[in-house]
C-alpha cells in the first residue's frame, strides 16, 4: 500500500496504462472492416473526381450555351451601336457639306418604299405623307438606312425648308428589322449624305432590361442517403432573389432554411448501427435558369446551380445502441457542395405578382454532415413572387 497525491495519481496511471504487452489481441475482422472502408473511399474518391469532371463539363456546356444564346443579342446591340456611330458621323459630315437641292429616290424596290414611307412635317408630332420636297438635300438609299435608326425604326420627318436644319425622328416599328438589314448590307457602300445638320440626339441604344424578382418558397422535401434510401419528409422555407439577365436567362440566389430528416446506416469498425438524423441546414443556392416557354401569364423554365450547406444544427440518435446521441451546433459547412436541378412553372396573377411551383432535386458532390453522408433531396417548392 502507498500514499498517492495529485502528482502521484498522474504517475500511477502513466506507468500503469503503458504496459509492455499489447492490451488487446489484434482481430482480423477489424482490419477487414478498415480494408472495406478504404476500398469504398478509393472508389468514392475516383467517382468524386469523375463527378467533378462531369460538373466541369456541364458548367462548360452551360457557359457555351449561354454565350451562344446571348450572342445574337450582343451582335444586334453592336450593330445598333455601329449604325448609331455611323449616323453621327454622317450628321457631322452633313454639317460640313453643301446641301443638294434635290433628292434622288430609287424607284421601286425596298429602298424606294422605305423612302416613300419617310414622313415630312413641320410638326415633329404630325406625320405628313408624300414625297420629299425638292429643296431637301440629296439622299441615297444607303444614307436613308443609315439615318433611320435600325433598332427603334425611326423615320425622318422634316419640312421642306426647315428639316434641313431640324430633323425629326418618328418611331416606325415596321421598318426596324428591314432597315437593320439594310444598314448591315450597305454599310460599306454608305456615303455621307449632306441633307441636314442634326442637332438633337438621334438614338441611344436601349440596354438589355434587367428585371428583379423576389420570391418566397415553401417546400416539402424528401431527404435520403445514397439514392434517397431510408428517406424521410422534411421541409424547406426560403427567400430567393432572381435577376433576369435576358429574356431567356436568369440568375437567382437566396437563403433556404431546410429541415432534413433521414435515416442512415452508420458503419464503423466492427458493426453497423442505425442512426436517425435531424439536421437544420441553411442552404445558399446560386442557380442559372433558362426560360423554355413564356406565353401570356405562363412561364416554364428549368435551371441548375450549386448550393452551399451551412449545418446549423445536427442531431443524431442511435437506434438499438448504447452510444450517446450526438448534438452539434454550427459544426460543419459545405461550400459549393450540392448540385441543384430544378424546373419552374410560373403563373402571373398580375404584372408584378406571380405564383410558382418548382420541383427540384439536390445531389451532393461531397459528403455532408458530421457522418459524411451523400444526402440527397427531392422536393416541390410552392411559392409566390414579386417582380420589380
Amino acid at each position, binding site marked *: *500500500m*502507498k*500514499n*498517492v*497525491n*495529485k502528482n502521484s*495519481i*498522474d504517475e*500511477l*496511471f*502513466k506507468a*500503469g*496504462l*503503458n*504496459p509492455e504487452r*499489447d*492490451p*488487446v489481441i*489484434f*482481430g482480423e475482422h*477489424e*482490419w477487414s*472492416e*478498415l*480494408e472495406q*472502408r*478504404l476500398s469504398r*473511399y*478509393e472508389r468514392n474518391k475516383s467517382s468524386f473526381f469523375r463527378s467533378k469532371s462531369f460538373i466541369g463539363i456541364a458548367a462548360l456546356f452551360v457557359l457555351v450555351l449561354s454565350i451562344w444564346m446571348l450572342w445574337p443579342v450582343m451582335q444586334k446591340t453592336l450593330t445598333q451601336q455601329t449604325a448609331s456611330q455611323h449616323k453621327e458621323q454622317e450628321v457631322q459630315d452633313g454639317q460640313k457639306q453643301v446641301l443638294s437641292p434635290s433628292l434622288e429616290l430609287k424607284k421601286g424596290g425596298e429602298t424606294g418604299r422605305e423612302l416613300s414611307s419617310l414622313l415630312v412635317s413641320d410638326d415633329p408630332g404630325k406625320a405628313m405623307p408624300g414625297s420629299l420636297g425638292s429643296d431637301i438635300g440629296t439622299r441615297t438609299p444607303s444614307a436613308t438606312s443609315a439615318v433611320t435608326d435600325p433598332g427603334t425604326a425611326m423615320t425622318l420627318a422634316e419640312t421642306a425648308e426647315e428639316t434641313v436644319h431640324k430633323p425629326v425622328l418618328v418611331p416606325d416599328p415596321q421598318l426596324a428589322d428591314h432597315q437593320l438589314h439594310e444598314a448591315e448590307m450597305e454599310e460599306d457602300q454608305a456615303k455621307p449624305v449632306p441633307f441636314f445638320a442634326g442637332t438633337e440626339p438621334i438614338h441611344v441604344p436601349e440596354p438589355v432590361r434587367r428585371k428583379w424578382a423576389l420570391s418566397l418558397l415553401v417546400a416539402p422535401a424528401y431527404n435520403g442517403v445514397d439514392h434517397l434510401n431510408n428517406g424521410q419528409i422534411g421541409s424547406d422555407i426560403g427567400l430567393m432573389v432572381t435577376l433576369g439577365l435576358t429574356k431567356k436567362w436568369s440568375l437567382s440566389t437566396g437563403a433556404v432554411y431546410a429541415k432534413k430528416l433521414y435515416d442512415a446506416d452508420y458503419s*464503423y*469498425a*466492427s*458493426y453497423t448501427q442505425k442512426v436517425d438524423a435531424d439536421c437544420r441546414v441553411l442552404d445558399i443556392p446560386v442557380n442559372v435558369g433558362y426560360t423554355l416557354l413564356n406565353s401570356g401569364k405562363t412561364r416554364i423554365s428549368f435551371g441548375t446551380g450549386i448550393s452551399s450547406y451551412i449545418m446549423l444544427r445536427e442531431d443524431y440518435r442511435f437506434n438499438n445502441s448504447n*452510444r*450517446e*446521441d*450526438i*448534438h*452539434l451546433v454550427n*459544426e460543419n459547412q459545405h461550400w459549393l457542395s450540392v448540385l441543384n436541378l430544378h424546373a419552374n412553372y410560373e403563373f402571373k396573377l398580375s404584372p408584378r405578382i406571380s405564383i410558382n411551383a418548382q420541383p427540384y432535386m439536390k445531389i451532393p458532390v461531397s459528403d455532408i454532415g458530421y457522418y459524411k453522408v451523400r444526402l440527397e433531396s427531392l422536393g416541390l417548392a410552392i411559392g409566390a413572387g414579386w417582380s420589380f
Partner: protein
Amino acid sequence: MAEEELQQLIEGCKRQDRQSQKALYLKLYGFAMKICLRCANNRYEASEVLNEGFFKAFTNIDKYDSHRPFKTWLGKIMYNACIDYYRANIKWAKMEALEKADSHLNAVVVDNELEYEDLLAYVQRLPPAYRIVFNLYAIDGYSHDEIGQMMGISAGTSRSNLYKARLRLQKMLNGSHTINYATDMEI
C-alpha cells in the same frame, strides 16, 4: 520496429498498397489501441476510434513529415479521432472555478498491485471530457494550451477538466465513491 522498415511501409501506404497498409496496421495496432482504450468508454468504442484513426492516417499519409516520429503523428491522429468521437460531450463541458482545487486532492492510499485493467477501468469511468484531458496531460504530456487547441476548449477548461478527473480518480482509488456515470455525462 526498425525506423527503416517503418519508412518503407509508409512509402507503401503512400502508394495505397494494401499489404503495406495492413503491415503498418499490425505493427502499430497495440500502440494505437492503448491510446484508444484509455480514451474510449469501452473496448468496442475503442475499436471504432482505432479504425477511424487508422483510416484518417492512411488517407492523409501524404501530410506526414518523414523527419518526425511516425508514432507521435499517429498518436495525435488517434487522439483527434477520439476527440471527434466524443465531440458532442466535450463541447458541453464547462469550466469550473479552480480556487482551492488542490486542497480537495488529499493523499489516498492505493493498492500497489493495481493492474492495467483496473486502472483502465477507472479511467474509462471518467466522462469523456475529463478522460481525454487526463490522458493527454498526465499520460502523454501535452500542455493545456495544446489540449485546448486540439479539443476546441480553452486552456482554463482543460485545467478544470484535469482537476475534476484527478478528483474522481482519487475517489475511485479510495473506493469510497461510486461513479454515477449518467450524471457525469450531463456536464
